[in-house]
């Protein structure tokens, strides 16, 4: 449905998007994930024909956006980052303007009624867009994208600036629309993409760093051989005991959870399952295991790992720096 091949776009020598390729099938919700300035909006603007790429091609429903832009655009409903609203119009006037602009052929009244029902705008249709709250403005933007029932919906950060209730509503809406549309949405919020999308493309500094469905992405980067445990007992003895288990390579003693309870981060050899051995050793010595979980990376960690090459991202580094600053302060 959507195919992107080797897309490159530079702004004044700086590559905003660098040789990216991906596809989205019909009835799929594709999440475009990346930090601010990663090239998400640029890619979406290229897909919708607002700007052009320097190299590469983008096909919407088999039509090249550069070769036959008018036809390609007729398949797309686009909600830009900032909804393109005319504040001097009422919701009804605006939607019927968009209806005319898109040369829509569906029966006008029932089509617009339906859209307003879907995005819950029915109560405010006679009001000036200027006077609507941010959440409603976003919905009007959404409604605009739905006019003409386009096959492809491209949504640039659709939930930014909404309150939690509205965010949930919009997500449910996207999921529902995803059943019979192809949806591409961008976001820098992980749980959002995780909750809504079938497929995820992670982008950073204009390059794709990962591409796959949400589960496989997490699995491919997961670390079954890493465990987090909470064990009651003296930390030194337990560390020694753990190290004596074959296949365990490293043990870090983490934070103290309770009196005589510490957290342990255990790294075994890859593909080794050490959980049973650990249990037996600890049980034999009478150390109760209060918690044991394999350290599967959440998508959040996956993301940080992919984009910064570090599981804990910049967060730990900043903490280190703060610690260092604190120590320096104490020294004085």
């Amino acid at each position: 449905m959507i195919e992107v091949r080797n897309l490159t776009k530079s702004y004044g020598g700086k590559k905003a998007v660098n040789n990216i390729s991906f596809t989205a099938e019909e009835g799929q919700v594709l999440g475009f994930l990346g930090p601010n300035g990663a090239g998400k909006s640029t890619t979406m603007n290229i897909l919708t024909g607002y700007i052009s790429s320097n190299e590469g091609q983008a096909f919407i429903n088999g039509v090249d956006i550069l070769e036959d832009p008018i036809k390609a655009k007729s398949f797309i409903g686009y909600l830009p980052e900032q909804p393109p609203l005319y504040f001097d119009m009422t919701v009804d006037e605006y939607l019927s303007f968009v209806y005319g602009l898109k040369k829509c052929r569906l029966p006008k009244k029932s089509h617009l009624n339906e859209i307003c029902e879907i995005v819950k705008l029915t109560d405010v249709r006679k009001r000036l867009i200027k006077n609507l709250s941010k959440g409603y403005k976003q919905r009007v933007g959404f409604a605009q994208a739905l006019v003409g029932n386009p096959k492809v919906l491209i949504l640039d950060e659709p939930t930014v600036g909404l309150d939690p209730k509205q965010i949930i509503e919009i997500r449910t809406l996207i999921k529902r629309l995803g059943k019979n549309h192809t949806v591409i949405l961008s976001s820098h919020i992980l749980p959002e993409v995780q909750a809504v999308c079938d497929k995820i493309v992670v982008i950073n500094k204009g390059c794709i760093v990962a591409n796959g469905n949400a589960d496989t992405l997490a699995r491919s980067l997961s670390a079954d051989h890493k465990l987090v445990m909470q064990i009651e007992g003296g930390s030194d003895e337990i560390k020694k005991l753990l190290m004596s288990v074959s296949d365990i390579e490293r043990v870090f003693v983490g934070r103290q959870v309770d009196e005589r309870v510490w957290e342990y981060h255990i790294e075994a050899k890859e593909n080794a399952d050490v959980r049973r051995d650990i249990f037996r050793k600890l049980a034999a010595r009478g150390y109760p295991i209060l918690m044991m979980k394999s350290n599967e990376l959440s998508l959040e960690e996956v993301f940080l790992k992919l984009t910064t090459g570090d599981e804990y991202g910049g967060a730990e580094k900043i903490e280190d720096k703060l610690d260092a600053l604190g120590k320096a302060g104490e020294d004085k």
Partner: protein
Amino acid sequence: MTAILKRELSAYFKSPIGYVFIAVSFLFSGAFFWLFTLSVGSTDISYVFLGMFYVYMIFVPVLTMRLMADENKLRTDQLLLTAPLGLMRLVMGKFLSAYIVFLIGDLVMLLYGVVLSFVATVNWILILGNFVALALIGAVFVSAGLFVSSLTESQMVAAIGSIAVNVALALINIIASVIPVKLISDILKTLSVFDRYNEFTTGIFSLNGVIFFLSMAFIFLFLTVRVLERRRWA
């Protein structure tokens, strides 16, 4: 195109701009009509038209400054440029909306002819010639204003820029006459809006002139399309 035309027209009359423009047209033409015609007992209303030429030179930019600059600023151009609509149609819709408002202001001029015809014999050919001339120059001013508006995000810059362009267009013949190089001066003279305008005001209906003004307007519309297109490639 009709969707854009309709929206722009309604925008003119939702804000004061449309009314202000028409009121200014009526006010100045009425004042000129009284000053140059009624009060001196003349039936020649070409001075009224001439006066309006200068008024429109300054005021048409007020009409056109919003057209593209506002879209650029509010980023609603994203809606227009991602809609399945050719750029020329988009530009034509914008142009026609402003031009229709302009014509509403301009049409009152014919009324003065009717008023005069009650009290004197009127040379209608002269009046019609003047009217057509003003309508044609209006098309040039509107399209030039639209072009300048597409270059900027600020309505103020668009207005001042278009006034500058209009003044330059009107003064080309004066500039031409002071340039010592004959070739350049001749080229500029053929571009002179004012000379062509004058032909009409004497009642001479020249096809050349019509084509000249229409192609002038078209060039600005074409340039506007190019500006929108260029943004895609920037």
